[in-house]
């Protein structure tokens, strides 16, 4: 009952004209930002922060929140259409989404992404409302040992991303791990692999890395071809997912929503991790794993649901304890503090209308986003008809500006180009970029967690086994490793027999 009471309070807040307007504005801007490669919600929110000074705090948070989860919707568009992630979290959508577009199925891909995002987004708000307090207790109990074991589990799951050569995929993971160490070492304050470039002290940016490996390399690959890609335009079939598509995706959406949500709650997890893990799990549980990477609709449904769900989940630590789960939430904390509101456990008691208003705005916002995005599908699909010789300079451009805008730094642009070159060669020589990106994201978290844990335990490794959550993750990792080894053996034995 209380669930609905709170909801009523929230709806009374969101349905005020001012809040509705800013909710719409937020999700609209968010969608645009998500579509433009590189410019992320962080920069936009920060820039719009001053605008929020003049409006009531609830409205300000509704606006900023809308930009954040709205961006998750838009991010899939360029991933599917041109194989360039609009947002770091949309990297995984490129894998199958783009293949679907090449097969003329851009419409269903975009459609399932929109619907999946809506379902997942709504799910995450419901879950937020229902289980926020107990969930946040669990999230808090994730200390350094738990993070380490979780990251180890993540690395093991990563092996399921491999499409062709396992050795090459693992090697790319190693490279990702290595690249993740670049920067100032948190534990000793020492610069690592920074080559005296101060911009590298904070590490290699995820945006330049992803834009380069996926986006710029894609441009290079396409520019090679002397024969233009007009063929695609002729093949566009339907605009929306078919019943079959739905049947295939429904579990992907469900699983993606849940996985994304929990990973979003854990501080430091987030949308990128959520989308990567949900994709890998879909592939693992699928009856035809080989179709992943070739245009499997689950390969779009799962990560898209996960990243939207993670966006919702990330609000939990913020609203219940005032802990930022990621950089975006940190900006929201700043916004709250400017208005004199202290984020923390008392937020619900002291400002219930803000709390429930923001939650209600997320229901409304998700609905608005669905309505916004569906008709746009027809528009985006038309974009594919633009001759590539005009399209690719535009894409190059947006990537260049996008990577610059992250930190106003030309170094990021140079990095992106470097990774573009590396990515191009990698793909020509059949190395996969996805494991690299996942390992890159996991590496710093895992390493810091390991060393912090060893400080706490005084050098003993027992700390990872003494704690239930940590032990659980490690056991799961071992289990999955054994499973994949068994299937590897099965394949080899079968080969011998043939």
């Amino acid at each position, binding site marked *: 009952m209380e669930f609905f009471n709170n909801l009523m309070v929230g709806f009374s807040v969101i349905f005020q004209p001012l809040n509705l307007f800013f909710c719409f504005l937020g999700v609209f801007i968010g969608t645009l930002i998500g579509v433009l490669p590189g410019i992320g919600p962080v920069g936009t929110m920060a820039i719009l922060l001053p605008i929020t000074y003049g409006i009531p705090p609830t409205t300000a948070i509704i606006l900023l929140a809308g930009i954040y989860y709205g961006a998750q919707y838009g991010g899939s568009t360029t991933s599917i259409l041109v194989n360039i992630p609009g947002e770091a979290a949309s990297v995984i959508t490129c894998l199958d989404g783009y293949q679907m577009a090449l097969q003329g199925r851009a419409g269903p891909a975009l459609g399932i992404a929109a619907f999946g995002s809506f379902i997942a987004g709504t799910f995450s708000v419901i879950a937020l409302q229902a289980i926020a307090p107990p969930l946040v207790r669990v999230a808090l109990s994730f200390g350094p040992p738990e993070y380490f074991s979780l990251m180890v589990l993540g690395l093991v799951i990563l092996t399921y991303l491999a499409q062709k050569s396992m050795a090459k995929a693992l090697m790319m993971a190693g490279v990702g791990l290595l690249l993740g160490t670049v920067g100032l070492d948190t534990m000793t304050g020492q610069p690592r692999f920074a080559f005296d470039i101060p911009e590298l002290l904070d590490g290699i940016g995820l945006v330049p890395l992803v834009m380069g490996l996926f986006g710029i390399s894609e441009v290079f690959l396409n520019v090679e071809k002397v024969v233009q890609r007009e063929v695609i335009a002729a093949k566009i079939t339907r605009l929306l997912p078919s019943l079959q598509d739905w049947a295939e995706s429904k579990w992907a959406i469900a699983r993606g929503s849940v996985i994304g949500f929990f990973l979003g709650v854990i501080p430091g997890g987030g949308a990128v991790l959520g989308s990567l893990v949900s994709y890998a799990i879909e592939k693992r549980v699928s009856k035809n794993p080989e179709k992943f990477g070739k245009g499997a609709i689950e390969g779009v449904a799962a990560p898209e649901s996960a990243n939207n769900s993670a966006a919702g989940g990330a609000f939990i630590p913020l609203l219940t304890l005032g802990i930022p789960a990621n950089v975006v939430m940190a900006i929201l904390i700043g916004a709250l503090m400017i208005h004199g509101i202290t984020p923390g456990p008392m937020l619900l008691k002291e400002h219930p209308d803000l709390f429930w208003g923001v939650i209600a705005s997320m229901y409304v916002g998700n609905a608005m986003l669905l309505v916004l995005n569906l008709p746009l599908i027809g528009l985006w699909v038309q974009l594919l008809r633009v001759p590539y010789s005009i399209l690719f300079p535009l894409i190059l451009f947006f990537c260049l500006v996008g990577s610059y805008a992250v930190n*106003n730094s030309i170094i990021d642009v140079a990095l992106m*180009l470097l990774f573009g070159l590396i990515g191009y060669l990698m793909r020509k020589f059949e190395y996969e970029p996805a494991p690299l990106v996942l390992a890159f994201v996991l590496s710093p978290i895992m390493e810091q967690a390991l060393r912090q844990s060893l400080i706490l335990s005084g050098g003993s490794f027992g700390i990872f086994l003494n704690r239930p959550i940590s032990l659980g993750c490690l056991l799961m990792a071992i289990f999955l490793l054994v499973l994949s080894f068994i299937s590897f053996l099965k394949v080899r034995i079968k080969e011998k027999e043939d």
Partner: protein
Amino acid sequence: MKADQVSPLFWLTFGLVSAFGSIKLGLGTFREPGPGLLAFLASSFICLMALVVLFQSLFLKRGFLNKLSTLWEGASWRRPLAIGVILIAYIFSLERGGFLLTSLIMLFIILKLVEKLSWTRTIVISLSISVGTFLLFNKILKTTLPRGLFGF
């Protein structure tokens, strides 16, 4: 040389160099890992996997076995190279020439020389894209784009 013999050699070298670098950072002990430990383990792993790929290709005849020369068969390697060089030039001149001017020039070069579009198309498209993005990012989104010697 086959593709899957060249590439692992590259990664092997990369791994060895990184391993050296990591040792210099300090390995520490397993109980008290130093800044270079994870990097060293990762680099060694890379070397190991590179050897595996090499082994697979040389002896087990598995993997990407095309000859190096066939990788660019039917595809132009000049065009990606040209784009790459243009991009490098763009990055170097961006902060001096300012966003608007450098972008205009770059687009012009790409569309005219690489893509060989007609004069009208080149001018129209380069102008609209560079001015368009300039307005979009500078005025509407209020991100700061590099301003060159000319002040814009």
